[in-house]
């Protein structure tokens, strides 16, 4: 193999070029993101997640972390939390609101993270999309699990924040995650208030950690 004499120098130049290119790409990517339709957002998110899942050599932890960051990047989690707590949002102090977001995120990450371990080559196909009356957008997908009768439908509801479309609800088989958690949390809040809800979330996550260890 021929070794060039001026490696450091060339490397530096190449490095600068790489940085410049990366910056350009970033700019282009941001630009593209701004113009991505809701449908594109769901498709891109799904593609990225499936790409991670296809890497069989990733550790379980790595895989979960990567998927989590992809999903969070395409979710308006703040809005999602507010929708879930609805009128109860105002019963939380700012500190409690922040803690709620952290705990709820951990809960979702733990629950759905475990599910990633059971991934069996399911594919996602986008089958439709539509604008909703309040300006939100619904994108419908079909999750393919090998057989007609085993496939199922998942809707995603997206809202535009700062120019980008982000997911604010996931609706498998017409059951809204937001509505479902709202109903659960309402039960807990009406019996014990915000502190009780936070405690229940913490306990659930702690239990999940034990479970993860096995």
């Amino acid at each position, binding site marked *: 193999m021929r070794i060039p004499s001026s490696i450091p120098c060339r490397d530096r130049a190449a490095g600068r070029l790489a940085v410049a290119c990366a910056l350009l790409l970033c700019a282009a990517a941001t630009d593209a993101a701004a113009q991505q339709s809701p449908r594109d957002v769901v498709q891109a998110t799904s593609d990225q997640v499936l790409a991670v899942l296809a890497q069989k050599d990733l550790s379980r932890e790595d895989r979960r972390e990567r998927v989590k960051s992809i999903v969070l990047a395409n979710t308006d989690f703040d*809005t999602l939390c*507010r*929708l879930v*707590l*609805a*009128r109860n*949002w*105002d019963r939380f102090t700012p500190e409690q609101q922040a803690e709620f977001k952290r705990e709820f995120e951990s*809960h979702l990450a733990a*629950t*759905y993270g*475990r*599910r990633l371990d*059971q991934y069996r080559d399911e594919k996602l196909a986008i*089958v*439709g*999309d*539509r604008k*909703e*009356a*309040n300006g*939100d957008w*619904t994108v*419908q997908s079909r999750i393919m699990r090998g*057989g*007609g*009768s*085993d*496939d*199922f*439908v998942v*809707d995603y*509801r997206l*809202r535009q924040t700062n120019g980008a479309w982000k997911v*604010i*609800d996931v609706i*498998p*088989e*017409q*059951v*809204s995650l*937001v*509505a*479902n*958690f*709202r*109903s*659960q*949390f*309402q*039960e*807990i809040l009406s019996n014990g208030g915000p502190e009780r809800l936070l405690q*229940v*979330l913490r306990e*659930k996550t702690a239990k*999940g950690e034990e*479970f993860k260890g096995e």
Partner: protein
Amino acid sequence: MRGRSWVLAVCLAAAGFGSVRAEDERPRPLPGARAAAAAPTGGATEGPLDYDPWQRVNRKVFTFNDKLDQWVLEPVAKGWDYVAPKPIERSIGNFFSNLRFPVNLMNNLLQGKAVDGAKTVGRFTVNTLLGVGGFLDPASDLGLGPKEEDFGQTLGVWGVPSGPYLVLPVLGPSTVRDAPGLAVDSAASITPFFIDAWILAGAQVVDVINTRARFLEAVTEAKEASLDYYAFVRSAYLQRRQALIEDRTEPLPERTPTYEDSELYTVP
């Protein structure tokens, strides 16, 4: 059998035995969760709260059903799931789903859905003759997917509100409107008089176990994902039933945009 999602699964499982009976395979009776539920509670920004005035009793029955499931049905279903390959489970599910034909036909017609009624007849014919007595589902590939309706849905389409949420012993989640619907559908099921009653009972047991086996993972996941499992199942059941009444389970482009729920998606 297509709507067989984890959600539905949870309803079924939480229901214990009954909800997993043949006729429950898919759409069971449905409560007008949202519309009907929102009204009595009246909370303007509260969103679609689930109307459940009998919660104290319901929770007790729910716990009973869940124990019954944990101690009896789930272990048996696990055993069956261990020995039976997935395609076998699916075929058995297809078979029992096919037998639900008279109920689907009746309810499609009662709801004025002549085309869906005709498709139901076509589907039954194709799957019975070409699908080896209903074990296979060639009809779906021919565009004759399931058009499953039950009497609870029919009442919903006629404008009967769901009424309070109701957890039936053994049978599981229901509502004041849906529960009587179960009886009507059951009466409408043609029971072949020439088949021994014991064989029919046995078949029903097979159906229940097989269905529960197909939902093993889904139920476990639902229990892990929920912080109040009772409320999780209730919300899932009521939402799903309302969607079935409004036929929102059809593909998005064919749907009428009636399910806009501005309350649900308004940030406080």
